[in-house]
């Protein structure tokens, strides 16, 4: 019989790494084949162990130029001439191959990114396949999408994606671009290139015509070379608001079309008649999912004053059960912080939170001795002026504020330059609908949080960027808009 003071321990349940075959070094994927870059190289490491996984090429301006030329050639000669139905069939093939190789992608993503296998297996990879499957079906139906009878592609799309959902962001970018008849040059994030390079193999297995998808690895310089390349017609970026603004400035005065999915500081509002246990699960999912490396994370908890004590007590109790550790362990809830740089940023803002007078709390948890780790953390007594209430921390750190009236909740929720997402918890239907209508945010989750679906448009208001990804709306950024009357 278990001793009450000695709760059950979880035995390790690690997922095997044997399914992935990480090469010692990778080139760039240009015109359908892997080629050596002409630039320098860098190492990608496992954030949970700091072991070097592979040597990655840093694409130079000349490499980017080659990739854009390959994309242009594929666009002109093949992809723009192909029927939508045939383009769609390639995308269906890609979706199927991703499903077939799902376990491999899930393990590789977990190793390279540091996120729990539970999430890559159950969220990232299935959603990636679904995204390709969804947009595959649009390719021959664009004339019904409301953008004119025969909407035309833009040409070559330059796409730069972040490290928090490496493969999923690739899917969000590539699937609609290809469905609409564009070709792409995509740069995965510096710290998470491996699943994009594995995706290149999927393109080969699918017999995708060479040059339709080009993957160039690198850091900020490579990204700038893509964005500023004169033969790129479309720039799609997901990442920080700071870089998003730089991109908006860089394309000024050009004909380039742009979509930007940037930062957020979402309010998760809990009213006094909320289903509290359910709300606590939503709060935990909202801020601790993917280590809080989520642009739409519910990083500001706004809880009605009358139930604040109850909610916080239950939240703390729930947080004590979160398991932080080996991302490949199937029991793990919170994996590694993606990089030393990000860990330093989370630490810095948390220290500022304390210095500004907020009260910090984390459950006791043993963190591994190697790798980058941060315990799930909440700050109470946070005011709207505190930096931890205004700036995106992009980590497992929740700022808790209280309110008295619904009007005050909305005012506080909207008091931010961001506007990506928001959450509302109440059992009262009319209050949900009223709050959802008042919130200046592109996605509102009521009595749920962090739901994603290929059919559901995603994107922000204000400084969270512009354009939508997902759904019929996600086609618009990749089509010429002169046909729509």
């Amino acid at each position: 019989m278990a001793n009450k003071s000695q709760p059950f321990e979880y035995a390790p349940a690690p997922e095997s790494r044997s399914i992935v075959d990480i090469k010692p070094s990778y080139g760039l994927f240009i015109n359908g084949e892997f080629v050596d870059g002409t630039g320098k190289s860098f190492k990608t490491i496992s954030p949970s162990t700091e072991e070097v996984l592979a040597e990655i090429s840093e694409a130079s301006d000349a490499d980017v130029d080659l990739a854009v030329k390959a994309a242009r050639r594929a666009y002109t000669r093949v992809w723009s001439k192909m029927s939508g139905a045939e383009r769609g069939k390639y995308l269906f093939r890609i979706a199927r191959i991703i499903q077939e190789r799902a376990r491999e992608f899930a393990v590789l993503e977990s190793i390279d990114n540091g996120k729990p296998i539970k999430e890559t297996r159950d969220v990232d990879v299935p959603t990636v396949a679904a995204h390709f499957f969804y947009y595959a079906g649009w390719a021959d139906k664009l004339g019904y999408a409301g953008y004119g009878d025969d909407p035309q592609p833009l040409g070559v799309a330059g796409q730069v994606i972040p490290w928090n959902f490496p493969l999923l962001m690739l899917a969000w970018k590539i699937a609609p671009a290809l469905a609409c008849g564009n070709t792409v040059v995509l740069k995965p994030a510096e710290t998470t290139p491996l699943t994009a390079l594995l995706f290149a193999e999927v393109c080969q297995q699918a017999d995708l015509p060479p040059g339709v998808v080009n993957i160039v690895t690198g850091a900020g310089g490579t990204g700038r070379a893509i964005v500023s390349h004169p033969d790129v017609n479309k720039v799609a970026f997901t990442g920080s608001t700071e870089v998003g603004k730089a991109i908006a400035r860089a394309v000024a005065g050009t004909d380039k079309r742009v979509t930007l999915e940037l930062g957020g500081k979402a309010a998760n509002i809990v009213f006094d008649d909320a289903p509290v246990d359910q709300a606590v699960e939503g709060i935990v999912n909202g801020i601790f999912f993917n280590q809080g490396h989520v642009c739409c994370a519910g990083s500001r908890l706004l809880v009605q004053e009358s139930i604040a004590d109850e909610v916080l007590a239950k939240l703390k109790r729930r947080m004590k059960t979160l398991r932080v550790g080996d991302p490949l362990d199937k029991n793990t809830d919170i994996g590694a912080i993606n990089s030393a740089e990000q860990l330093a940023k989370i630490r810095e803002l948390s220290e500022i939170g304390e210095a500004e007078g907020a009260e910090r709390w984390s459950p006791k948890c043993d963190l591994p001795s190697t790798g980058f780790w941060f315990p799930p953390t909440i700050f109470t007594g946070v005011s709207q002026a505190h930096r931890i209430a205004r700036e995106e921390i992009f980590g497992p750190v929740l700022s808790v504020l209280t309110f008295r009236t619904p009007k005050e909740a909305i005012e506080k929720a909207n008091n931010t330059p961001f506007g990506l997402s928001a959450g509302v918890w109440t059992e009262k239907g009319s209050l949900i609908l009223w709050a959802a209508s008042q919130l200046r945010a592109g996605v509102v989750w009521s009595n749920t949080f962090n739901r994603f679906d290929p059919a559901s448009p995603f994107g922000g208001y204000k400084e969270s960027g512009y354009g939508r990804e997902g759904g019929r709306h996600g086609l618009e950024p990749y089509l010429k808009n002169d046909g729509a009357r």
Partner: protein
Amino acid sequence: MARLDVKKTYKLYIGGDFPRSESGRSYPVSKADGTFWANASQASRKDARDAVRAARAAFAGWSTKTAYNRGQVIYRIAEVAESRRDQFEAELRSAEAITAAQARTYVDAAIDRLVFYAGWADKIAQVVGGANPVSGPYLNHSAPEPSGVVAVVAPAGPLLGLVSVVAPVITTGNTCVVIASEPHPLTAITLAEVMATSDLPGGVVNVLTGSVAEIAPWLASHLDVNGLDLTGVTDPDLARTLEEAGAENLKRIRRPGLEDLLAPPPLDRMTKFLETKTVWHPMGV
């Protein structure tokens, strides 16, 4: 002896009022034949900021009116404009040296465009929004919402130019600050008189006259402006500079481009200044 005309003083239109420029400046406007017509107010940075403040103050009320109500108000602008069509035709002929038939064409088109957009107010949400079939037990729907305050540089075409850029912005619930065509500002103020007497709440449309090169940069860099329509900017260097300034708070920007204003307008005159809000509701017992 012939009776002396009572000439009109042309001022700005801000927050429903007709103030002079706080700067005390004006600039002479000539008719097409070169003769003096009137002095127009030359708006300043301060006027632009006052106009943004008025537009922001009006946003909450205007954007939450029912779409049907907004449509009726815009239809009312068309009605009142129609009642003053002789004046508009005469002004266009003075300003642009066009024939009576051409003036009639432009006035017809401008009034009809208002009627066109009046009808859009309660239809755009169904055309660009809808239910999303997500894979799970959720009711998920997307609907458009106005971006907020939009700064507009109106193109040439004293009446149709202004109507073509302002009507699509406000019919969806935005409020705006519009810089009238620099050489032909007077008809914009006449149209403002129409709007002021058409149940349009003060501040929904604010009209500035003056130098585009002077005023537009203040609007482009203003952090309480959400959108920027550069249709009337003819200098590519200025357009680039304005776009760069607008990047600071990621304004939604409609770049300049040649457009036949008499042709049916593109949908993105509205959609460029709309946000898509997607709401998820769980279903279950």
